[in-house]
């Protein structure tokens, strides 16, 4: 054992002593968004990537002394791909949180992966009430809206303002049925009658048989519980058969891209609920909308600031907790009231992890009423969160421990 050997050993031990704290030091905060960038909802959801990025930048880009890392993945609105991507993000990239995931089946799959990996998931895009209901758990939060809110708010408002005799056409799958259940409950509360319902297979191109049935029933309101291309087709054909002259139409979900897709004359004077609009008076909303216009050439839809808000509130919660440890952050989010450009105020319920805020009722404008680009909606009413969201004790959520 010569001197050389001794020196080598000391150097190695010295490096080891230095290395340990380097390795033991916390990894940076890693935020990921998993959304539909090339599937059926890409027109609305792909830009959410930008919203999350913006939130990170506006927050300052740094957290706990390190640069926040950002990941984005595309799940094409397919639940099996979402499942695998969630695994990839949680296991390989070791992200601390996944945000968004439109499509209810995909959202539920990712929620389960979050639960298994004990990391956070904030669902923005998927509307299923299960997130805050039977399938709730500590690691999952539901942001911005769910099917209950969509259906109930416009249901309550519609029954008061548009009429009490309704006919519904429902997309024949879990989401549609969920909406139908909530709509009819709201209708019943206001003493309305359901004249009839038709369940229509997803992807049906021809709605005329159902529309004719609806016409025959002579309702005050026709409710279209579908979205995307199905809603476009149904409404286009409703106009063609003159239904709009005899009744009002309420939609489950309509965004500006749909209006652009078929033209405003098709959706003119229809009603829908939403969580935000670029002209609301929430502080910061208009600036956000202007930045968006500059970046994309059009105004944001309400999914965009919803993702922004989810990201921002997560980062703020980590800051308050002083650590990115999931349990500590979750405790900071539960029961928290906040004000940001999306909701002012917004409140995160501890009982079911639902982020609640007020709901807006929109009327789609006629073509000649649209004076500024993308100003396609008029706000005709608001519903407070206590009515728009289900009583947290009735959701069926048994929020357990960690």
């Amino acid at each position: 054992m010569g001197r050389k050997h001794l020196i080598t050993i000391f150097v190695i031990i010295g490096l080891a002593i230095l290395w340990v704290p380097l390795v033991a030091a916390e990894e940076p905060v890693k935020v990921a968004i998993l959304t539909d960038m090339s599937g059926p909802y890409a027109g609305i959801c792909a830009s959410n990537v930008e919203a999350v990025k913006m939130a990170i930048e506006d927050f300052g880009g740094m957290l706990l002394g390190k640069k926040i890392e950002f990941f984005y993945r595309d799940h094409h609105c397919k639940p099996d791909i979402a499942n695998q991507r969630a695994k990839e993000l949680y296991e390989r990239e070791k992200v601390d949180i996944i945000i968004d995931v439109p499509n209810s089946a995909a959202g539920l799959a990712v929620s389960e992966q979050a639960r298994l990996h004990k990391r956070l998931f904030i669902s923005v895009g998927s509307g299923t009430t299960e997130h805050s209901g039977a399938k709730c758990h500590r690691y999952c939060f539901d942001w911005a809206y769910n099917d209950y809110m969509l259906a109930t708010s416009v249901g309550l408002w519609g029954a008061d303002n548009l009429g009490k005799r309704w006919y519904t056409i429902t997309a024949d799958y879990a989401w549609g049925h969920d909406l139908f259940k909530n709509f009819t409950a709201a209708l019943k509360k206001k003493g309305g009658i359901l004249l009839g319902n038709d369940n229509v297979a997803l992807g049906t191109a021809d709605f005329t048989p159902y529309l004719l049935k609806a016409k025959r029933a002579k309702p005050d309101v026709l409710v279209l519980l579908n979205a995307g291309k199905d809603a476009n087709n149904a409404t286009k054909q409703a106009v063609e058969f003159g239904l709009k002259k005899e009744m009002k139409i309420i939609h489950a979900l309509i965004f500006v891209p749909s209006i652009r897709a078929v033209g405003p004359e098709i959706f003119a004077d229809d009603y829908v609920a939403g969580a935000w609009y670029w002209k609301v008076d929430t502080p910061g909303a208009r600036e956000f909308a202007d930045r968006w216009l500059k970046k994309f050439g059009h105004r944001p839809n309400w999914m965009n600031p919803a993702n922004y808000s989810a990201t921002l509130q997560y980062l703020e919660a980590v800051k308050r907790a002083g650590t990115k440890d999931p349990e500590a952050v979750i405790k900071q989010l539960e029961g928290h009231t906040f004000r940001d450009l999306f909701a002012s105020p917004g409140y995160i319920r501890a009982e079911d992890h639902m982020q609640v805020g007020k709901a807006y009722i929109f009327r789609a404008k006629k073509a000649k009423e649209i004076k500024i680009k993308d100003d396609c909606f008029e706000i005709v009413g608001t519903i407070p969160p206590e009515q728009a969201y289900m009583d947290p004790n009735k959701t069926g959520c048994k929020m357990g421990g960690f």
Partner: protein
Amino acid sequence: MTQYLITQLLNGLIVGSLYILLSIGLTIIFGMLGIVNFAHGALYMLGAYAAYTVVGVLSGNFLIAILVVPLAIGLIGAFLETTLLRRLYRVEPFYNLLLTFGLMLAIQDAVRIGYGPEGEPFNIPSALLGAVNLGITYYPKYRLFIFAITVLCSIGLIVFLEKTKLGSIIRAGTEDSDMVDALGIDISKIFTLVFGIGAALAGLAGVLAAPVQNVEPAMGMSFLVETFVVVVIGGMGSIIGSIIAGLIIGETLTIGVLIWPPMATTLIYVFMAIVLLIRPRGLFGRAEFLD
């Protein structure tokens, strides 16, 4: 009640019309070239988008679209046949099926990337707006127009095939393409023509559908499998079969949802399975196609 029923029946007729146009194209392609064209739905979609481009982007009118678009899609079809499909005639026919499958994916995605997934607006041309008084009921003018065009096309096609020289060559080629080749007629040109005609019919269906459906990249998908069903039931290679089966399927889908909603769409697959198992050549097909 009668008024309501008649209107529904008329609807079935119109839905059937689009299926007729699509399945005639598919069936002559199969009859003549032995290719199961999975890209047929994509050609239909291209027709609708071409119509949008003519009317929406280039501010042409609908009449121009009806005349020009089928021609354009027909030429695209001919181009695809000569550059791609032709190369696989020497190998087993199912390779061409796979080729058209890949083509369908590529075309659909290319349109989605180029135009966006939500779709493009396309309204009923003002000249065809409104309803016609048929005595028993009022019915949208435009839908009757679809029916009229389909009838015209079907008659025109049948006349072409029965009464013209080129038509008889095509009919002969459908029966026995080798023989036609041996007789000195350039069968490859006929193949291209037939594929082109099939594509043109799909394109025409697309133009006609654009005002009443959401023009979006996946619009052909919902029609594709049902078109196969029509072709199988009608009989591969038979135009009359396509027409009759198209009407049957159109009415089944429309009236079926009124009688038994949950099963309506699955019912046609059951029909197809039954036909395939009991009388595989369909209503009007020929037995030789079983191999």
